[in-house]
């Protein structure tokens, strides 16, 4: 695979919820190692698109998808693809933090344990995994003395960071985030955004956001969607200063949304 080959590539992706078509011929190429923001008004299909990338849409029986999605050069809808592996390599973070009702430590190790092949690893090795994951999301210093506390006792901001941290021991290539800050206050949002910049480079991050300011602050590239179609995709700075499409300009300037 070429070095700059896209991390996520969709080709004529169409998606139907029953009769309703939610995505129309979406062609998207997301560059590896950067943060790409998906923006657009409510109902434009950005969350739907995000949820295609780890095939979680399919749990709803009435969803039909046509077209192609490649992640790291591989077609994830090809026959023989194992869903457990797809979800292991493509992590997902939700609007509301959803830590498991387990100690912090066990939350971090959960994914590692369900995918572990071979004998149980030693406790020292587990400790190393926990520390490294928590350090990556800038949470280690806050929680290192209470790893045995329930994760649900943390603040929302800490819970959301934990939900990201627990994906990292699986060494995912791609992190999908569905409005990860919408349940957080501005201060917490800021620290989560700082954390995103730390993760940038090691992971390809695709983030859905309603918040224009956040898209502008915390992304390298922006994708604007409208009515299930991809309207514009370019470097964030360019899109916010000189949008190519008049609909993008209208949305960014708040004329609808």
């Amino acid at each position, binding site marked *: 695979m070429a070095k700059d080959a896209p991390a996520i590539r969709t080709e004529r992706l169409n998606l139907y919820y029953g009769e309703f078509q939610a995505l129309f011929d979406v062609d998207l190429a997301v560059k590896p190692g950067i943060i790409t923001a998906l923006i657009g008004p409510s109902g434009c299909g950005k969350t739907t698109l995000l949820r295609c990338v780890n095939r979680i849409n399919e749990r709803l029986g009435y969803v039909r998808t046509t077209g192609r999605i490649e992640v790291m050069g591989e077609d994830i809808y090809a026959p023989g693809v194992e869903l457990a592996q797809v979800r292991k390599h493509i992590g997902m973070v939700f609007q509301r933090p*959803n830590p*498991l*009702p387990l100690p912090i430590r066990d939350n971090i190790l959960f*994914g590692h344990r*369900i995918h572990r092949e071979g004998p149980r690893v030693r406790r020292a090795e587990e400790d190393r995994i926990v520390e490294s994951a928590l350090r990556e999301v800038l949470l280690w210093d806050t929680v290192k003395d209470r790893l045995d506390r329930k994760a649900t006792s943390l603040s929302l901001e800490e819970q959301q960071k934990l939900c990201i941290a627990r994906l990292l021991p699986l060494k995912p290539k791609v992190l999908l985030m569905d409005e990860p800050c919408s349940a957080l206050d501005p201060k917490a949002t800021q620290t989560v955004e700082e954390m995103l910049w730390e993760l940038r480079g090691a992971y390809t991050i695709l983030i859905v956001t309603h918040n224009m300011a956040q898209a502008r602050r915390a992304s390298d590239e922006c994708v604007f969607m409208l009515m299930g179609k991809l309207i514009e995709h370019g470097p964030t700075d360019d899109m916010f200063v000189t949008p190519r499409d008049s609909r993008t300009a209208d949305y960014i300037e708040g004329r609808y949304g």
Partner: protein
Amino acid sequence: MSQFTATPRNHRQHRRQSVVKAIFLLMTVLLIVPVLLILTFLIVKGAPVLSFEFLFAMPENGMTAGGILPALVGTVWLVTVALLASVPVGVAAAIYLSEYAPDNWLTRAINLAIINLAGVPSIVHALFGVGAFVLFFKFGTSILAASLTLAIMTLPVVIVSTLEALRSVPQAFREACWNMGATRWQTIRKVVLPNSVSGILTGVILEVSRTAGETAPIMFTGAAFFLPFLPQGVLDQTMALSLHLFVISTQVPGVPEGFPYGVALVLISLVLLMNAISIGFRTWLRGRKKW
């Protein structure tokens, strides 16, 4: 007059408020009065006959003297075997319905069947038990046949209470697991069951108390009028507290007046004890889980 003073309309509303509240309170009191009366009555009439001998001796003189040991032991047998049969089936069925079953007509039909099964009168279950277990499977009138009949009868309640316990586990926990690539079974084993076990156990223990008091389903399938010995295995017949209460109240002349009340008191104490254990257990488990 200040704009914040009560108007006549406010006063009327307050009076109506008091009346409505009083009616609801009255209904609640009416609800607990019978329970208290029954308990008091039983304790006053039944407590004098209770003794070590009453609980742990065999009946004598055509059940007009001695104790109730075979009935007590028999009820424990019946309940235990019924639980061993109904809990694994019921819990597994509930896990399937809650965690695996797609939402289609078959699932809805099964759910409807379970609700209807819960509404079948116990005497109908009894006849089914005779036909299926006593005659067709040739278990004869035995603890096994009676317990299986009880198990069929209690299955819907086990399934429904387990379903409720499983559904009380937030969907977000399942989503979290699936999105890390956990299989359904891993999700159930590591997250869903640990967080619903208190609810499941509560349902099961409440079930025990219901099973212990049933008479009709065991009458034709395995419970005997009188047996001078204790059951030795599941293919034996047995006496049972509920049937024994019926028998000495209506079928046997010369039973001392306190005896039926004593049996009723033992049966109810057994049930209340089970309920108390179940509530205590649930409180203990709730204290340990937090979300």
